[in-house]
């Protein structure tokens, strides 16, 4: 995956606004995608997934969009809350449940 060192892309969002986090994946054969949230000091937490035969899936306050033509994935968070502050990773599954992770985006929610 992309190495971003200490300089993760950061998205600053006002509390109550919507957030959109983008991810480009690498393998056109990938058939399953997951978004994870990682808070400081914790392991990644599953948010939502989508299979390649879908282009949109909704959960509670979150929506994932998949554009296979351009190999792009996005996560939309509605009415962003302070508890949404974390690093978000997309992951693609391309062989036997082995996941390849994207570089991550840090979301900072401003009160």
């Amino acid at each position, binding site marked *: 995956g992309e*190495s971003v060192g200490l300089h993760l892309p950061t998205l600053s969002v006002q509390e109550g606004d919507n957030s959109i986090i983008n991810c480009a994946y690498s393998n056109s054969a990938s058939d399953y995608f997951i978004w994870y949230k990682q808070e400081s000091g914790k392991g990644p937490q599953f948010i939502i997934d989508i299979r390649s035969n879908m282009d949109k899936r909704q959960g509670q306050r979150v929506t994932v969009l998949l554009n296979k033509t351009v190999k792009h994935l996005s996560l939309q968070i509605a009415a962003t809350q302070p508890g949404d502050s974390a690093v978000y990773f997309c992951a693609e599954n391309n062989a036997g*449940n082995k996941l390849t992770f994207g570089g991550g985006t840090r979301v900072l929610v401003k009160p």
Partner: protein
Amino acid sequence: SAVISQKPSRDICQRGTSLTIQCQVDSQVTMMFWYRQQPGQSLTLIATANQGSEATYESGFVIDKFPISRPNLTFSTLTVSNMSPEDSSIYLCSVGGYPAYNEQFFGPGTRLTVL
């Protein structure tokens, strides 16, 4: 979802020593994986822990450096051998199903610092 615990949660070790990390799951799972997350970076798969057979390692990772055991369907260990400061990372285990592409769940991680 599966409940996953890891021991130790963190450790500080001297170079040249080895550390064994344990991963325990509250239910039997088919697939178990070990990942590394270097400081401020994303996750990289080290290997798939296979029950009853040798682990399957990803490119750049070898058994001599990261021996893995999986004696049953609820437990696995990862050893980081002959450690150097470059091994300072968070090590995470995850579990998932196959072939239904069930979501993978992660443990809390083991934060390793090598001096």
